[in-house]
């Protein structure tokens, strides 16, 4: 009798073990706080879904693409991954189609229109937006105060590029900040200036590159001069020096990056910082981007993956999740959400986003941009090294881009 009970217990236990699904999630992190926050939400999901165990593999952002490429190539894709705009375009052919799980129009209608081109490949839905990103400039308030330079707070009276340059000069010469501007080594951040100059990478038809223009030339020449005149430390674009380190250590007065740094910068104790509206040239603009969650065809648990993605991007979960991570939710109903001490900074990013033309998002949702990213950056570096003129660089990028679009 005792034996029979033991067998029953064993079978029950085995049943529970075998009935449990393991959801494989690849999650990239940029700030040290992100992992603990996501772990908390994973536990919430497991508690709400007792039959599911979520196994998370955390990877640094720099290794994300390679990790996913190898998993997909080895026919062992994860069930769910957190990705950026470039990835969602690259992994489109193997993306899990969420349209099979939702009513497409009501699902898409939950999110900001700027994020839809990234995820909607009519009729397929290849992912769900997690948050919206915007490029922007962080500044060291102490250095600006020391130099007696006032940063515009009214978004209607932002600096022109010339005024911005003057401010750089004053802050560098009259404050403890050794450098005027740190600048992320990416084509994406460079493009902030291109759009402000009224330029764009790809024309309205989406079939031709449009970078070889007067606006492109103005942008690249202005950018190269910032290096030549010592405003941006050369090491950041020529030898991979980390621009964030210079800003966080209080040596750089400004840092061109984006809102995803807020969580990390909340740890800065040695100086006061803020976010300034992006300077304008011809127009005001930032570059919208975002983080997304996507599933993969051929993963072990596609249904559970879709369920997890929908849960994570639902109003009940996504709003507190965004607030915990200090990021801008991609949901329409997040409008007016408060972030406490970062409300001012977030208001600046939101203001820049609100005046950004829609073609900026279209440029970056074109798969050609994901393919050409590194190439464009390389051509810009050649200009900085004096190996070619800005005009030559633009012609080369244009030719390579058109080849790809053909």
């Amino acid at each position, binding site marked *: 009798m005792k034996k029979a009970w033991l067998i029953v217990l064993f079978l029950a236990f085995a049943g529970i073990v075998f009935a449990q699904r393991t959801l494989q999630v690849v999650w990239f992190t940029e700030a040290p706080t992100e992992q603990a926050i996501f772990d908390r939400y994973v536990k919430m999901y497991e508690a709400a879904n007792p039959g599911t165990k979520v196994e998370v593999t955390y990877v640094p952002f720099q290794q994300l*693409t*390679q990790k996913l*490429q*190898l998993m*997909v*190539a080895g026919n062992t894709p994860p069930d769910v991954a957190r990705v950026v705009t470039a990835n969602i375009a*690259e*992994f489109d*052919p*193997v993306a899990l189609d969420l349209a099979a799980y939702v009513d497409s129009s009501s699902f898409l209608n939950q999110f900001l229109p700027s994020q839809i081109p990234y995820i909607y490949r009519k009729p397929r839905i290849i992912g769900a937006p997690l948050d919206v990103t915007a490029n922007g400039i962080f500044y060291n308030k102490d250095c600006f105060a020391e130099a007696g330079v006032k940063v515009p707070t009214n978004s209607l009276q932002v600096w022109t590029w010339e005024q911005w340059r003057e401010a750089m000069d004053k802050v560098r010469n009259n404050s403890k900040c050794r*450098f005027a501007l740190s600048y992320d080594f990416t084509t994406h951040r460079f493009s902030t200036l291109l759009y402000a100059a009224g330029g764009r990478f790809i024309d309205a038809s989406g079939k031709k590159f449009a970078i070889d223009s007067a606006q492109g030339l103005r942008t690249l020449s202005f950018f190269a001069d910032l290096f030549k005149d010592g405003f941006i*430390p*050369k*090491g*950041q674009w*020529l*030898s*991979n*020096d980390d621009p964030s*380190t*210079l800003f966080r250590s209080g040596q750089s007065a400004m840092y061109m990056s984006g809102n995803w740094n807020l969580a990390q910068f909340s740890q800065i104790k040695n100086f006061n910082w803020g976010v300034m509206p992006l300077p304008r040239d011809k127009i005001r603009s930032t570059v919208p981007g975002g983080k997304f969650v996507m599933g993969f065809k051929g993963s072990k648990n596609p249904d559970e993956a879709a369920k997890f993605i929908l849960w994570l991007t639902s109003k009940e979960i996504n709003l507190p999740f965004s607030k915990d991570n200090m990021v801008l939710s991609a949901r329409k109903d997040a409008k007016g959400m408060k972030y406490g001490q970062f409300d001012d900074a977030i208001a600046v990013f939101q203001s820049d986003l609100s005046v950004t033309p829609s073609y900026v998002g279209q440029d970056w949702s074109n798969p050609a941009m994901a*393919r050409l990213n*590194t190439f464009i950056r*390389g051509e810009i*570096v*050649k200009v900085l*090294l004096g*190996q070619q003129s800005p005009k030559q660089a633009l012609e080369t990028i244009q030719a390579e881009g058109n080849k790809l679009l053909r």
Partner: protein
Amino acid sequence: MKHKMGRLLTPYLFLAPNTLIFGIFVVLPMVYGLVYSFYRGNFIGGLQQFVGIENYRQLLEDRAFLTSLAHTAVYVLLVVLLVVVLSLMLAIALRATTLGNALARIGFYLPVILSPVVVGVAWRWMFSSDLGVINAVLSSLGQSPIPWLTDINWARAVVILASVWSMAGFYMVIFIGGLNTIPTELYQAAEVDGASPRQQFWQITLPLLAPTTLLVTILATINAFKAFEIILVLTNGGPGDATRLLVQNIYLTAFEGANPTYASAQSVVLFAILMLLTLVQLRVSRDS
């Protein structure tokens, strides 16, 4: 009969696990790499089309590949030359077994046990143009900073020095082993005949060290051709592509360019170069 068969099979049984591991982790990926190099494809769609030698033909016109190949040739030549000379000098200087020499040997060997990433980070901390210790010291002395990693020529020099520093200790140990096999009687006899230390070096040490020198040259050449991590961390191949070597170009082609089949063709070329160089070196050594 059974006993004889067993005796025949025993060595193969002992070799089997190693052969199996070698086959799975070395030979099989090599074969895959070779096959991939004749196809067009990517990570997502897999192998899509057989293109014969098209990838190899394309390499001949690929500026990025040819530039990285030229950089690699210069890098290998200088690194191997410096490594052989420096490690031989260290071995001769530290050959005698004294406490001071033992400590010095440990000091020179330490970089070998460091991860290449750590070496890259350490050198970056020293030579970074804006954040580096050396430029900070120069500035505090009223000197202008040197663009160590932002000037093409300086960056190449720093990369070569960092590589030599990280390898020299290992080859020093091999040279010390080689020096210890030279009978001391030869030196004693040479001294009696009035040979100067310089003559002893050229007439005794160098000829008798030839097999060791060959071994060091082959190993250093192979290692220099495979250089990747130190450079990735130190300069990431920059400024521009000034320090981008073949292995990094293969990595970039495969992962950033999402073109693993074309990267495989580049790997096959690297393998062929290494094989050829090793055969030539062995042939030269046999002939001499």
